[in-house]
């Protein structure tokens, strides 16, 4: 490490004021502060500071994403060979998954960090760590066969329009990763929905009966009568629930396994990085909406089988869990007050299930629900804080 320190010290003059590469200082700074926590000491106020910093926080989110990523890699290969009905070993599945997934991650990070670096150089800011998480989230919410150039455009769009124009990290209104997905969803719907994109059948022909539909698409026609990638029906609802909970279903790379997501959630909640208020209230919101449909569905619209998908099954389908664990809890775009977080989370749960069921054109209701609530979050906070202000004013009047 002394070697690294000396090397960094040696090239430093070139990046400092008056040096040849003066303009690239934010890049140098990012590299140096990545390797070493700088020797900055406290000048005013508290002389000692908590060990936590933005890098540690963001790193913990990445760690929490790892189970979902690993399972996603495996499941990409698993679904592929299942659709082709080819025998494959575990390693072959993983290798196929890696072959599909790694390029997405590289493109997402490359483009996103590139845009971020350019902005920081123009504005002379230090590079913020926020995109380390967004850059991992983006590939996890994409279908594995999405063309790389689309990912590149979507990432650039999201970083520019959702984040940098609002002033960069900490100032954005919309979740960056979800903006990327929403952009693709509306700009290139054929690559982001339907039944062709969720299972890669590259290099072979799918078996008879193959359907690449996600459970969300199946539920529109069949309700809870689900079938797997080969077209074989699950024996019971609890079987399809289990497959869905464990993640052996088609879908975006990181979203299929509720179990892997829950491991991530446990990490986020235990370390306190994400808000349990948001996660819990969103979960309850989703369950409540599902329950309402279960109760009212048979009476109001007996033909709509989607309404009858059991509420507990709704929660493990599609991107609902991934959304409420990793997207809704983004502290910048969520509500900031404790009470606001509860309202915000609950609304996401309600809306996520509502949109998916009532408007089958938008199967991924959770994405739209979170983006909508991102926009509403400041308003929620405003009223929560106003309540505190009113309490203070009332005290003044009675005093």
């Amino acid at each position, binding site marked *: *490490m002394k070697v*690294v*320190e000396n090397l960094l010290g040696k090239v430093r003059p070139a990046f400092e004021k008056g040096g040849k590469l003066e303009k690239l200082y934010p890049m140098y700074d990012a590299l140096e*502060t*990545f*390797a*070493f*926590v*700088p*020797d*900055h*000491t*406290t*000048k*005013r*106020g*508290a*002389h*000692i*500071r*908590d*060990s*936590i*910093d*933005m*890098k*540690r*926080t963001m*790193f*913990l989110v990445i760690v929490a994403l790892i189970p979902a990523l690993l399972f996603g890699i495996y499941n990409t290969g698993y679904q592929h060979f299942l659709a082709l009905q080819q025998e494959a070993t575990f390693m072959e599945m993983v290798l196929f998954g890696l072959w599909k997934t790694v390029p997405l991650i590289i493109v997402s990070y490359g483009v996103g960090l590139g845009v971020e670096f350019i902005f920081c150089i123009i504005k002379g800011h*230090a590079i*913020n*760590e*926020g995109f380390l998480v967004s850059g991992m989230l983006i590939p996890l919410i994409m279908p594995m066969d999405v063309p790389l150039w689309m990912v590149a455009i979507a990432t650039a769009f999201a970083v520019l329009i959702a984040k940098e124009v609002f002033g*960069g*990290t*900490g*100032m954005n209104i919309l979740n960056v990763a979800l903006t990327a997905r929403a952009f693709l969803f509306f700009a290139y719907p054929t690559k982001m929905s339907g039944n062709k994109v969720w299972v890669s059948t590259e290099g072979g022909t799918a078996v008879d009966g193959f359907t690449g539909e996600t459970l969300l698409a199946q539920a529109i026609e069949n309700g809870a009568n689900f079938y797997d990638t080969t077209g074989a029906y699950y024996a019971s609802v609890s079987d399809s629930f289990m497959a869905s909970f464990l993640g052996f279903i088609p879908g975006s790379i990181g979203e299929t396994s509720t179990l892997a997501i829950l491991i991530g959630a446990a990490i986020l909640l*235990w*370390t*306190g*990085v994400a*808000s349990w208020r948001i996660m819990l209230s969103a979960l309850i919101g989703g369950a409540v909406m599902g329950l309402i449909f279960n109760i009212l569905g048979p009476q109001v619209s007996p033909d709509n089988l989607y309404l009858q998908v059991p509420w507990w099954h709704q929660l493990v389908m599609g991107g609902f869990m991934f959304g409420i664990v990793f997207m809704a809890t983004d*502290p*910048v775009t*969520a509500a*900031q*007050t*404790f009470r606001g*977080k509860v309202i915000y989370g609950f609304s996401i749960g309600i809306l996520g299930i509502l949109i998916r069921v009532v408007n089958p054109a938008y199967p991924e209701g959770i994405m739209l629900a979170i983006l909508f609530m991102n926009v509403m979050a400041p308003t929620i*906070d405003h009223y929560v*804080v106003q309540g*505190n*202000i009113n*309490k*203070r*004013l009332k*005290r*003044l009047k009675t*005093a």
Partner: protein
Amino acid sequence: MSKAIKIKKGADIKLIGEADKTISAATRSTVFALKPDDFFGTIPKLSVKEGAEVKAGSPLFYDKSRERVKFSSPVSGEVVEVMRGAKRKILAVKVLADSETRYEAFTPWTGGSDRDALVDTMLAMGLWPFVKQRPYGVIANSEDTPRDIFVSFYNSAPLAPEAAFLLESEKENVQLALDALNLLTSGDVHIGVKKGDSFFDSLTGVKKHSIQGPHPAGNVGVLIHHVSPINKGEIVWTVNGMDLAIIGRSLKAGQFKAERTIALVGSEVEKPQFYTTMIGATMDSIVGGKLKGSNNRIISGDPLTGAAVDTKGHPGFYSSQVTVLPEGDHKKFFLTEGWLAPGFNSFSLSKAYPSWLNPGKKYRLDTNLNGEERAFVVTGELEKVFPFDIYPMQLIKSIMVNDIDAMEKLGIYEVLPEDFALCEFACTSKVNIQQVVENGLADMRKEFES
């Protein structure tokens, strides 16, 4: 009358270097100094010139906007230097002490109901600066009558000395000072005491509140907030519990008796213990020869709110604690000590570091910022260590954009920078929150007072 206050939000940061309960005399300092910067919101005007002879209790300077508020020399001797900084700002007025202290004589006060006489005596003697006002945390205006007066005897800050120990032999003086405070307010004198601390039971004429919970439970701001919060237009006064000893002692004798006991603490002190010294003594007379290394941060006050002072400097006017910590001015490799290290010797209020595994462990924390300043990203962490019914993040942001109206609505009158010290410690984005709050209070004061 006693009322229990239970605080849940907050945190006790456990540091190495708590003081042994022994008291020794510190080395006698030859030069004493008063620093106008210790008195927030004061514009100093000199009462003396270099070379003048002063007695203990003679004014060295006074406040330009409130001329009756005088700042007195703690010792007798010759004014040897008026230290000035940029724009001729007065940094310190130094007095070379006589070997025997000669005192300016004032009328003693040992009781009675003549409020004006008491105020005059306190002003003349230089005791008035011990009385502070909320909002703003400035020295009280002697022409106001405060709604109530609050005193906290619970020092909950890291490594802070126990009030009962510091005041052990001063109970009568404390009682006299409380009697004086009772005369100053039209309301009550409220005292905050750590739960289970019976030393203060015998004090009379006050409303006692027992406080339980982690730091900042002992902050007088927390006491006020939970007893009777400050509304717009109201004024309350506060006095440090430790300073009551000086007030009582001086009132009784009719002389400004500036002796105080301070705790010398921190991981870099060879033998942490208590020392008797006087206000304005040099730092060297307290820490000289008692420290471990040489690259230290010497703090007058506690590690969360104190001021950095070098050995040639002087501890703050209000300070009963000197804390010495290692400087953190070295780079930390990310895998061994930095953000990706396991970090068994790092302390964090979050569970991002394993310090939660060992709640009893005491830490040797240095002054490294442990990161760089960033935009506010993480939410909810400030609220966990802020036991007020106030939204800290929203208040801080309103100060940052200088929205006076919002600051007022969000409760800035009820807080001082020290109440945000733990928020500043916890902040992932490394924002200097106490500085922000101080700026906000200064702006408010400029807006509403001439």
